[in-house]
């Protein structure tokens, strides 16, 4: 039986098995509808006159009656739920409610001097009342923010607009999990961008995408609106959005010059602008010099190079300190979005947080919720460095992030380059114990130069000194025994690749002749060395991990691949 025949039979079976209850349904519908109508009229409370949506990253919808008393306050995302927890706003006046919300947002760090923008969207059938409310609320919020952010030099940035819900807007808001107000603002901005480029006679390259803007906090959207001249006439802007979280135009120029290895005197023409690329805030720097044209895309927070081009027409060339893909390799964008698009709820974390622990900015924001008792990223870095017998100053770069698998934080991944070697450590999130390690010689073109195998924990000559890390008095300090990986029986011998391959084939229930392609790598996972096979057959890819010592299969994963 083919798939199509099976589908056909299931369909026919269901059609025949389904009983005919139409008469019963029609007879109960008359009663139900009148009863529902009665119930509706009984349950109907005071009428909602206006709806006000506040967006920072937490998005809150307030419904008010004709006397501007709050009838309901609804959280539109996870951050707002946390914010509104325990807050009883029903029956309070609109101003009182707004005061409390702004105060709480400042206290929790959603509003600060680096993040000073708030969007107010008012929905009301009566346009006069809508305009009045919009003005009143925005002035009140501006005043509230200035009172609460006294230390800030940036002031408040309040964006306000009136919104009329339509099906497209509702669909957009639902699709991207944002409020109708934010969806309306983004749609207006994109329309504005489209008209502006059309007026200039330029081709709309579609560089700003709805999905990119949807995942950004309101402050970044406001910044882009200012920078790209995407301010819509129907949106009122009070104050300026803060760009304190970013390195600024001057900083970006300085970074670009250092990557290009030239001085300012050689620059004939320059163009710098803040933009967004795949949901990441970047500076685009164009330099015209005697040596040629340079184009850089720099991470707006750190100035790290994301992309660069020199005299190239569509072809990236290696240039600058870190090569064509920048500091963290070609996965930088993925890394950035996963770890720094802080306000967004991380899809892999249960419940997500996206909340800021304090108002110190992006550096302190982690979208990944670490379990209680977990060590910090800095401690994980220290554990890895001390195991390698190195100091942070010895490294060319070091970065650390929690590795998430199936919604749980598995371990910290610490990667660094020192002495021409590339180190990768897996650090236990509770004890700081080294779970796995791989070292790659950067000078080697192919493959990883694993230092023997992880179980024997032999350090490569010249790279890892034999001394044990000498401890400082700290409770979290990892002892030499803890840091050292478990020793294995030296008599245990590593399997040959062919043996492991046979095991993998057997486990995946495949024949070698079925394979279109396969490859194998040696990897360390949870402190065990495994052969990682990727077996490709028509329509499917199997990943099978075979323990390199005892031949047990630790993981089998099947993936559809067309």
């Amino acid at each position, binding site marked *: *039986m*083919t*798939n*199509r025949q*099976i*589908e*056909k*039979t*299931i*369909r*026919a*079976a*269901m*059609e*025949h*098995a*389904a*009983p005919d*209850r*139409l008469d*019963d*349904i*029609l007879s*109960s*519908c008359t009663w*139900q*509808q009148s009863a*529902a109508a009665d119930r509706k009229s009984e349950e109907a409370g005071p009428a909602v006159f206006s709806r006000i949506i506040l967006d920072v990253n937490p998005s809150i919808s307030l419904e008010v009656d004709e006397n501007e008393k709050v009838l309901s306050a609804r959280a539109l995302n996870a951050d707002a739920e946390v914010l509104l927890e325990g807050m009883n706003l029903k029956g309070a006046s609109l101003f009182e409610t707004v005061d409390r919300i702004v105060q709480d947002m400042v206290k929790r760090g959603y509003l600060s001097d680096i993040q000073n923008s708030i969007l107010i969207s008012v929905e009301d059938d009566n346009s006069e009342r809508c305009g009045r409310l919009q003005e009143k609320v925005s002035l009140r919020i501006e005043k509230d923010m200035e009172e609460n952010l006294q230390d800030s030099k940036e002031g408040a940035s309040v964006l306000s607009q009136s919104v009329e819900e339509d*099906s497209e807007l*509702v*669909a957009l808001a*639902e699709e991207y999990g944002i409020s109708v107000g934010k969806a309306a603002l983004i749609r207006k901005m994109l329309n504005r961008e489209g008209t502006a480029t059309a007026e200039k006679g330029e081709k709309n390259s579609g560089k700003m995408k709805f999905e990119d803007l949807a995942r950004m906090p309101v402050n970044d959207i406001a910044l882009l609106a200012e920078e790209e001249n995407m301010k819509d006439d129907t949106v009122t802007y009070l104050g300026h959005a803060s760009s304190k979280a970013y390195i600024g135009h001057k900083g970006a120029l300085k970074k670009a010059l250092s990557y290009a290895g030239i001085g300012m005197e050689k620059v004939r023409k320059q163009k710098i602008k803040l933009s967004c690329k795949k949901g990441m805030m970047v500076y685009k720097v164009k330099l015209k010099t005697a040596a040629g044209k340079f184009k850089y895309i720099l991470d707006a927070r750190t100035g790290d190079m994301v992309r660069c081009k020199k005299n190239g027409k569509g072809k990236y060339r290696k240039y600058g300190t870190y090569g064509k893909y920048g500091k963290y390799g070609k996965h930088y964008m993925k890394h950035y979005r996963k770890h720094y698009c802080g306000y967004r709820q991380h899809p892999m974390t249960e419940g997500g947080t996206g909340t800021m622990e304090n108002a110190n900015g992006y550096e302190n924001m982690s979208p990944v919720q670490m379990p209680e008792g977990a060590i910090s990223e800095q401690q994980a870095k220290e554990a890895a460095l001390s195991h390698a017998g190195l100091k942070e100053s010895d490294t060319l770069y070091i970065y650390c992030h929690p590795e998430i698998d199936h919604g749980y934080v598995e371990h910290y991944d610490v990667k660094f380059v020192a002495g021409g070697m590339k180190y990768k450590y897996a650090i236990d999130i509770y004890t700081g114990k080294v779970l796995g390690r791989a070292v790659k010689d950067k000078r080697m073109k192919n493959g990883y130069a694993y230092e023997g195998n992880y179980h024997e924990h032999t350090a490569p000559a010249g790279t890892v000194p034999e001394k044990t890390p000498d401890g400082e008095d700290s409770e979290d300090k990892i002892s030499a025994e803890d840091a050292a990986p478990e020793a294995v029986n030296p008599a245990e011998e590593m399997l040959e690749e062919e043996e492991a391959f046979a095991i993998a084939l057997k486990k995946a*229930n*495949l024949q070698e002749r*079925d394979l279109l392609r396969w490859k194998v790598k040696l990897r360390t996972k949870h402190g065990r060395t495994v052969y990682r096979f990727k077996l490709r*057959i*028509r*329509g*499917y890819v199997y990943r099978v991990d075979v323990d390199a010592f005892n031949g047990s299969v630790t993981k089998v994963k*099947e*993936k*559809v691949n*067309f």
Partner: protein
Amino acid sequence: MIPTSPPSAPEPREMSDAELENCIKEIAAGDKEALSKLYCDTHAAVYGLALSVLKNSHDAEDVMQDVYVRIWESAPNYRAMGKPRAWIYTITRNLSLMSVRGKNRTSLSDPSELEPETAEENLTDPDERIVLENVMNTLKEDERTIVILHAVAGMKHREIAGMLGMELSTVISRYNRALKKLRRSLEEAD
């Protein structure tokens, strides 16, 4: 082991989404004719989906009736967004899950009540009977749901992924796995 046929496209639907939306609009205005039309187009899938969750033909029948009554009640609140099928089947799934929860709460005094009433008993065609039996007994609940939504309701994998909140790739792989399982068990039965 190796899938030989490419992923199949869902069977063409009898009523288009726009027609269904019009139908819901008419239902909102109190038109019973429209409800009958909608019933004829969707009742097999609604029943199948309820059956896939409940595994009991009597409960599935009750849920099916509740679904159309709910559609009749909620039609005035329906917002046309081009996804009427997702709306109908989401109602079905929610009511089925509520029914499962309700059943779990009530304790059964008579052990004979535990005996499931199977839908395949009503079928006369032996092929259909075997296939339905296999769908109910061989597949897991989520696989059953995906198969019913695709094969009976005619929903596309992308729509199913959106409705069930799953990744598209997960839906496709579960669907393929389910069909593979079915094929294998049907071959064994032969």
